[in-house]
């Protein structure tokens, strides 16, 4: 095994120590989702997801050079950078940012925690990456040491307590991706519904929803709510997706091994 699970207190402690010298990544990933861009992003081999793509990453802070690529590539925006080399008092935290508002170095912004609650204001030291809608930027904030570890993001909005502002509603996405594994959009599901299926199992055959890596465990509640909500089917008729082994991707060589 390379490193230890990234979110364990030990690893966080080690990263905090290392941040005294230079920037280091802090990975707050504990969801077992099929995802591993962080592993490929790291040129130093500090992050390992391994053959089981659902496993949370292993992280070795000793190998991290603080380049920040993993933070830019993590689809869940679960990685931040920590830098305490500037001395006592102020810690620099770099967080990924994908919102529309422009953030400018020298100004102040709100640092937010895991649930999006404001922690306090911090000075923007640097904004790297292209400043465009949908692009990921890495925003470096200087914040007090006591809550630096809680910072997970930055808000570009002027917070409501300051100046109330009309919030413009983003256009609603009509055709969202319902089944991520098989990339089935809700429009294809509606099309399949036109064929008047009688159970989720039949819908699966009609539209490929739930035929992928998660076998429907991630999308089926949304699917059922959507279908019942749009009166496409009775809740009782929906049933559940059958999940057959293996419940996670397993290589053939492991399945065929003597230990089964």
């Amino acid at each position, binding site marked *: 095994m390379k490193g230890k699970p990234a979110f364990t207190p030990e690893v966080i402690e080690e990263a905090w120590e290392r941040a005294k010298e230079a920037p280091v990544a802090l990975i707050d990933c504990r969801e077992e989702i099929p995802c591993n861009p962080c592993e490929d992003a790291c040129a130093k081999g500090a992050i390992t997801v391994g053959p089981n793509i659902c496993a949370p990453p292993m992280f070795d802070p000793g190998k991290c050079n603080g380049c920040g690529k993993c933070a830019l590539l993590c689809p869940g925006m679960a990685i931040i950078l920590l830098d305490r080399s500037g001395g006592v008092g102020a810690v620099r935290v770099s967080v990924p940012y994908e919102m529309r508002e422009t953030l400018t170095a020298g100004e102040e912004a709100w640092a937010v925690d895991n649930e999006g609650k404001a922690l306090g204001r911090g000075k923007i030291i640097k904004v790297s990456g292209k400043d465009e809608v949908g692009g990921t930027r890495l925003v470096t904030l200087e914040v007090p040491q006591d809550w630096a570890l809680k910072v997970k993001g930055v808000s570009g909005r002027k917070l409501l307590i300051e100046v109330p502002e009309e919030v413009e509603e983003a256009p609603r996405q009509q055709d969202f991706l319902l089944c991520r594994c098989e990339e089935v959009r809700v429009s294809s599901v509606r099309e399949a519904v036109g064929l*008047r*299926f009688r159970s989720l199992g039949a819908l699966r055959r009609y539209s490929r929803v739930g035929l992928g890596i998660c076998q429907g465990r991630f999308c089926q509640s949304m699917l059922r709510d959507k279908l019942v909500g749009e009166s496409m089917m009775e809740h009782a008729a929906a049933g559940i997706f059958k*999940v*057959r*082994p*293996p419940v996670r*991707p*397993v290589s053939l*060589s492991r399945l065929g091994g003597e230990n089964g």
Partner: protein
Amino acid sequence: MDDVLSSEVVVIGGGAIGAATAYYLCKEGAEVMIVEAEDLAAGASGACDGFLSLQTKQLGSHLEMAMESIKLFPEIAKDLEAEIEYNPCGGLMLATTQEQMKELRARAKKLKASGLEVEVLSAADLKNYMPEMGKNVKGASYCPQDAQVNPIKLTLGLAQKAQEMGATILKGVKVENIVVTNNRVREVNTSEGSIHSRRVVCAAGTGSNQIGKMIIVDIPVMPQRGQILVTAAREPVLKTIVYGAEYLGTKASIDELMPKEEEALKLGLGFTAEQTASGNILLGSTREFAGFDNQTTPEAINAIAKNAINYMPWIKDADVIRSFAGLRPYSPDGLPIMGTVKGVRGFYIATGHSGDGICLAPITGKLISELVLDGETSLDISPFSLYRFK
């Protein structure tokens, strides 16, 4: 169903065979009603691979029927609005022993004499077909006419087209009784009411035995389980459908091609591999009798994985993302049961296709449609009569 329904023809079963039968009946202008207990492709047609295999058919009428059937796929693919992923990719049957090789050679000769294109390939020839072969693979027989299709899309596409041509599809409706008076079918009683009809086609797959009982006829079909593994989707690597010679051994009970290990024999293990249009590789399969239990089992998953690596070592790192099992309508000799029933006019059987239902669906649909509407068929189906078992 408050009113009493009626239809010129009732097709019991919404699988590939029932859908194809309805499709061809509608093409001839017949009024058709499909009665399906669950949902379209809910049985064997929705839980199988997409092999359209000619070189595994029994010599004679079975092969002749399959060759006629394969000719219909391009037409169907063109005619249906839905994409059915028909792919005339050819098929490789791999031999792992000299004994198997000898048998495949002898078989190739006979298949050729029946008009099928078959070529015997050496291990060296196989390099053109696959990244790497298992060390013990001695050669193969290659049939360019073998093909593949998406069985679910085929079934849904045929049913949808039939519906457009006027067929009614009743889903979640169970047939409870068939009323016969004066030696003729009159009425089909269902969980939702009665349907007046003088012609009934039994395309109920594994449920056919139950349907037969309603007219006091023993249709000897029993469920045979086949388990299949599904890998994560990947770039196209398999150019053809692939099977091991043991697949044919367990399918057609050919002693020379039977698996040697006891465990494999018990599972009816035979190697199959195909890459679907979506990029997943389906690895099979087994032939087991487990009643109506369609669960997958650790023993079979383990055996299929081991077997696959044996034939295609390069696949060992592929991730398996799920498994499934289907219940094939097995007949005692592995051949379909088709035709009329003595003493019950208006009752037609189209079932028992075992593992060949997808391949034989178009020709079965066409021939049964002819039988129902004209009383005779363009191909002789007497070898598939119910009465061959007596």
